[in-house]
């Protein structure tokens, strides 16, 4: 097999491995295996969900001086803090455990100028069945950077775009 074919094969293998990584993290989170999920992230991960607002198309107001603020603005330490809270046994909203199922779709993987990093677009739908008949559906778009470190793909950056102008649930005790 020539160098070109080898390169293409490697690229296909990377795409396959990245897709698997996306599905695996969805399953780990559904199963509340938060520590295993965190293990699939880079030390310097930036995990964010910006606050947004709907504005008229003609609205030319300048951006806010201090920025919009973030629903999630997490480093690895802060993700660990959220996990510590969730695992403490004192988060009453999660006890009994809720039925949570993630569907990941519209996966698009784009090479970057850095050989070991890929830009990954995806859509996540989170179904939560909670108190009695209460069920909620959260939809978000995600733009990730995944980095290959010693044959493993790690999540290095995730920008989450929540597609709800008003959060339709009493909490966001879920990772996207």
């Amino acid at each position, binding site marked *: 097999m020539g160098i070109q074919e080898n390169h293409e094969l490697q690229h296909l293998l990377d795409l396959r491995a990245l897709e698997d990584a996306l599905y695996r993290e969805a399953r780990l989170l559904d199963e509340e295996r938060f520590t295993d999920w965190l293990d699939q992230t880079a030390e310097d991960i930036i995990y964010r969900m910006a606050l947004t607002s709907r504005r008229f198309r003609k609205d030319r107001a300048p951006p806010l001086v201090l920025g*919009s603020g973030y629903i999630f*603005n997490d480093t690895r330490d802060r993700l660990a803090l959220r996990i510590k809270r969730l695992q403490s046994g004192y988060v009453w909203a999660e006890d009994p455990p809720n039925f949570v199922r993630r569907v990941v779709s519209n996966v698009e993987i784009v090479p970057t100028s850095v050989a070991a990093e890929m830009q990954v677009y995806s859509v996540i739908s989170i179904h939560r069945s909670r108190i009695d008949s209460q069920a909620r559906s959260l939809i978000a778009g995600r733009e990730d950077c995944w980095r290959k470190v010693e044959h493993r793909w790690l999540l290095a950056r995730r920008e989450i775009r929540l597609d709800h102008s008003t959060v339709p649930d009493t909490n966001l005790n879920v990772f996207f």
Partner: protein
Amino acid sequence: MPLEKEAYFGEIDRSKHGLVPVAQVQSYKGLIFGNFDPDAPSLVDYLGDVKWYLDVWLDAMPGGTSLVGETQKIDFPTNWKFPVENVCGDGYHLGWAHHAAMQAVQTMDLAGLRAGNADASGLDMGMSVAGLNGHMVLAALDGQSGYAFYPNPKPFVDYLEANRSKVVERLGAVRAQKLWGSQLNITIFPNLQLLPGLNWFRVYHPKGPGKVEQWTWAMTENDMPNDIKGMILDNQCLTFGPAGLFDNDDGDNLAACTEQSRGWRTAQMDLYTHMALGHSARREGFPGDIATGLVSEHNQRYFYRRWQELTGAASWKDVPSYNLNRLASEG
């Protein structure tokens, strides 16, 4: 107006179908209020002596205050009075409902804010203030506990100490030393809450029975340096934003309270709110009827009392007005 002649046959009296004017628009130190009722009291009278407490946030520093960041909107299935009640006076829920969050983020060991309600020491470190026409304040009195839930409180404590003498000049020693920098929960009846310290500003919009939309902003003093303002926005989102470590405890409790109260049998019961009933008094130097500590149902009782007074009144003339234990200087 498009097709006024063709579609309406020129028969519409536009002067009768405009927007309804807001009968009264008044502002108090940067907060603008509108009211559709021309007979409602003036804003200054409506606020009454809670202004004395509001000024600790709105007028401590010469530059005033601003809301920062985008609006944080969350929709949840609860009676609108529950979240108001939760914040206006309920220090009892802190150590238990927020046990996990407090363990995770509390950086100052302040008496009275112990996780798990594990001990009763320091319960008298704060006060519950009511008897102010339905407005209420829950206040710690240490001058810094507002920043007890910041990862690094030092820049905030430094800011407070660098400016405290200025606040003494503006508001006097009692407010500058005991209230400015302390965790304060200020409720403007019925649905506006300001929390200096945790630094949020919140309005609850009732959306029909058992439904509320909650709008929250981070709030800063304009004299704060930009890096401190940025840390406030970030920490307010972390603690009381839509994915806030604390706020994510409250929503489900309040939704569950609403759901459970709908039961046929439960709906026939009275709400028990007797904690510390009969244990409030005048406190030298502070307006209002004051119960000791952050743990009591003193404020909740005044909240529901005001609700009853308003829903039972045919007009504003029938609504009692009271500002208990006024300070001499307040007239």
